[in-house]
């Protein structure tokens, strides 16, 4: 068992996500930054999709009730165990009575805490992921609260390992998001599409797991901003009447009636999901074949990360 001493502003249980429910209006949920989530699970010997915590901006403070192993990844955060500095991106072995404190993100927005054995909450529609707006999954459909207790699955003690520095993502700085144009690029003026591809946008603080809201030069529509509602893919860049783009993320609405100028490639979704308010974003168009090649490369890079053993 893990006790929640302080949950942080928004900490939820997430797993690989809830598949097959978008036709009923239920989004997949799951981690915004899949690679960091997967690496946290690998560090504690779990399968890639085991249920772990996703925290936002500020991490939780947790008390350990029985020996367990954990790993913290994602946003760059200070971390202590019993007030002594501890390492992120590393398997940590904890004893009963230990208190883990995950601090405020220096870069990135979302971090992950994985536990050997995974978090044992009841699956809903095949997933333990929390869908906050739908009050579904995870810890009673809500973010963690003080005094919650997390039950862990049984697991052997994992080896102590670390994600090599070169394999850790770097958050912060200006980012470029690769996009495939469409499906409604024809609903924008040529100048509007040029504005979208040539301008710099800033991430707004209203961003959440549903979507990253951006602010910058207005993207001009050709024939109004409303369409007959259709499905919304992960990474879809919706542009409502105000001409400001919104990149839709894992808790997005399943359908919507605003024009979508482009779709951010899945391998770049984490970068916008990890961008802090004020961080600058640009878009670069790629064709479908290039996008698929880059996806293969990105998956291969994650698959080939070799965790380094630590002598214990």
């Amino acid at each position, binding site marked *: 068992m893990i006790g929640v001493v302080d949950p942080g502003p928004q900490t939820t249980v997430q797993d690989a996500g809830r598949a097959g429910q*978008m*036709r009923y209006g239920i989004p997949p949920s799951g981690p915004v930054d899949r690679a960091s989530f997967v690496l946290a699970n690998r560090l504690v010997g779990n399968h890639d999709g085991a249920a772990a915590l996703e925290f936002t901006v500020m991490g939780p403070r947790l008390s350990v009730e029985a020996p367990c192993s954990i790993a913290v990844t994602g946003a760059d955060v200070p971390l202590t165990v019993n007030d002594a500095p501890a390492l992120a991106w590393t398997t940590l072995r904890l004893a009963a009575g230990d208190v883990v404190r995950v601090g405020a993100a220096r870069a990135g927005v979302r971090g992950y805490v994985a536990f050997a054995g995974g978090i044992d909450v009841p699956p*809903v529609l095949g997933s333990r992921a929390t869908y906050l707006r739908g009050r579904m999954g995870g810890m009673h459909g809500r973010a963690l609260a003080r005094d919650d207790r997390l039950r862990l699955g049984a697991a052997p003690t994992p080896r102590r390992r670390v994600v090599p520095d070169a394999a850790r993502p770097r958050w912060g700085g200006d980012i470029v998001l690769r996009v495939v144009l469409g499906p409604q690029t024809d609903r924008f003026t040529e100048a509007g599409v040029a504005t979208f591809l040539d301008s710099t946008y800033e991430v707004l603080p209203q961003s959440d797991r549903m979507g990253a809201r951006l602010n910058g030069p207005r993207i001009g529509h050709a024939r109004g901003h409303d369409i007959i509602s259709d499905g919304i893919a992960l990474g879809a860049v919706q542009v409502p009447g105000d001409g400001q783009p919104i990149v839709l993320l894992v808790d997005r*609405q399943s359908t919507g009636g605003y024009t979508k100028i482009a779709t951010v490639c899945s391998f770049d979704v984490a970068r916008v999901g990890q961008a802090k308010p004020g961080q600058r974003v640009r878009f670069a168009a790629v064709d479908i074949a290039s996008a698929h090649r880059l996806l293969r490369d990105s998956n291969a890079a994650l698959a080939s990360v070799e965790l380094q053993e630590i002598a214990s």
Partner: protein
Amino acid sequence: MDVNTRVRALEYLIDQKAVPGVVETVPTYRALLVYYDPLIVDYDALCAQLATLAEQATTTAMPPARELELPCCYDGELGPDLEAAAKRLTLSVDELVRLHAGAEYLVYFIGFTPGLPYMTGAPERLTIPRLDTPRVKVPAGSVAIGGIQCCIYSVDSPGGFWLLGRTPVRLYDPSAAEPILLRPGDRVRFRRIERREFDDIAARVAAGDFRPVIR
């Protein structure tokens, strides 16, 4: 065959044939979003296969639709736009309710919030522009019209449709084994109920002791 029937028929065919690489589908009025894994199936090959299926969809027979009867209480408290909508449509409140409750609706698709049905089938006489100013919060269960559509809000959410009444039945219940009541293609009828029966059914719903009639 109308475009939405083709959309649903195409989804049905994709599901029946278990097209390799297809992960998930989302039907809407006139589009089907197909999620696929490009590492399993080639984009161009999948497009060709879907185009073939889309042609077949024009003649595909789908399994019979489910028919549901949902109790609905049309009154000024649960349907705060009832009078304004009647006035706008130059109908009496009673005529409006009779027309709305007398129609059979088809669920085109589910979207916006979990379990929210977008339905067609309202009499043409009930076509009405959306509210000028959407409400910030519409209670779950509200039965509403906007444009040529009818919808039932599934959770408390913002909304721009005219609220005519409310059903005590839950369209979305995250704690239920099957959280979503309606599916694309379902046929829905409303049974007009009085406030006393609404309260009675609402209490039974809360106790887990009410299931709407499904045929």
